[in-house]
């Protein structure tokens, strides 16, 4: 079960052609673009927390596109992770179905205890603060513990020790560190500095450290293990295409985040706007999976999509009374 990142493909232009020529991706992006237009034009007040200025969110989309363009440039010479070049799996179909069923269980059980995958969706300008206002130190710690145990520890231990998969076959190594560590640091920093507020700079260091720990345990590692290390490579293997695998991972990521505070399904306008926002959440799942499958690194998506959560340090300081 080793990850082979070399083959006879032209790795400099081939993956870009595979990306741009992939029909499921074209369909996904067409629906996503229609969803963007719908969000811009629809009455957003039908959903809680949704009637806010989405300009910052769409600036983030542009940033993700630039990050991926640079990533493709740096990844030239290596093959994406698919059925030919990626890890081999004993029973990819059953393992994938098991993972998806587990994700459904985690979402369902979590909702019974007010525990969701995102503690706050940072894409909406004022939404995160309002969601943090409803949190306590105890509920935030419970959120981190639940996600870490259910989406990181349990799946990792099962696949590592029950099924015998190595860290390399779960894309948990960090190949080509001279390239990807600087990329991680630069893109990961750019991923949140644009969203820094005056409160951020006056937040105590202890709150910044706690934010990093809280989101590492509650979000970065759980999403890295379940969706990037385990699910995305299997979907790429099963679909026969790393791009199609990324699209399927995106849909699963959106479903995993279905309990976002700004989604509701009680009326037709709510369903339409919720589906449009669902596509936005799924879009970030797409960026994550493309990052992972193009580089063979389940950690790099933290830089391209996740460090934005670090701007929530002032909310963490307030919740944990760190002043």
């Amino acid at each position, binding site marked *: 079960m080793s990850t082979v990142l070399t083959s006879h493909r032209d790795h400099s232009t081939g993956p870009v052609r595979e990306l741009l020529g992939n029909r499921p991706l074209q369909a996904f992006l067409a629906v996503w673009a229609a969803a963007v237009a719908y969000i811009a034009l629809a009455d957003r007040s039908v959903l*809680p*927390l949704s009637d806010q200025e989405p300009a910052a969110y769409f600036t983030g989309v542009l940033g993700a596109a630039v990050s991926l363009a640079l990533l493709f440039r740096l990844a030239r010479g290596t093959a994406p992770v698919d059925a030919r070049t990626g890890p081999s799996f004993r029973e*990819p*179909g*059953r393992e*994938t*179905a098991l993972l*998806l*069923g587990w*994700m*459904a269980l985690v*979402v*369902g059980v*979590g*909702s019974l205890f*007010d525990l*969701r995958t995102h503690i706050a969706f940072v894409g909406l300008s*004022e939404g995160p603060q*309002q*969601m943090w*206002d*409803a*949190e306590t130190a105890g*509920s935030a710690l419970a959120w981190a513990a639940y996600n870490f145990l259910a989406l990181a520890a349990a799946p990792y231990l099962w696949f590592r020790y029950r099924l015998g998969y190595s860290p390399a076959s779960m894309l948990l190594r960090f190949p080509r560190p001279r390239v990807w560590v600087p990329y991680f640091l630069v893109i990961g920093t750019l991923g949140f500095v644009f969203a820094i507020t005056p409160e951020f700079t006056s937040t105590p260091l202890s709150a910044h450290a706690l934010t990093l720990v809280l989101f590492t345990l509650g979000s970065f590692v759980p999403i890295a293990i379940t969706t990037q290390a385990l699910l995305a490579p299997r*979907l790429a293997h*099963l679909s026969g295409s790393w791009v199609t695998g990324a699209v*399927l991972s995106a*849909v*699963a990521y*959106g*479903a*995993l*985040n*279905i*309990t*976002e*505070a*700004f*989604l*509701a*399904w009680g009326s037709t306008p709510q369903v339409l706007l*919720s589906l449009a926002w669902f596509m936005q959440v799924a879009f970030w799942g797409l960026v994550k999976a493309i990052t992972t499958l193009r580089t063979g690194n389940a950690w790099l998506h933290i830089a391209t999509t996740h460090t934005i959560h670090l701007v929530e340090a002032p909310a963490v300081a307030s919740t944990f009374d760190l002043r």
Partner: protein
Amino acid sequence: MTHLLAHAGHAGHGPAWPGVVALLLLACLVLAVDLRRSGRRR
């Protein structure tokens, strides 16, 4: 904004069932494709 939060539930989250259904449907799709492939191999 308080009424909007109340609308979302006291901790501010939406219902889980659409995601649960979507994930289970995806799981069924994966199993169906896998079974079809293994049938072809035989």
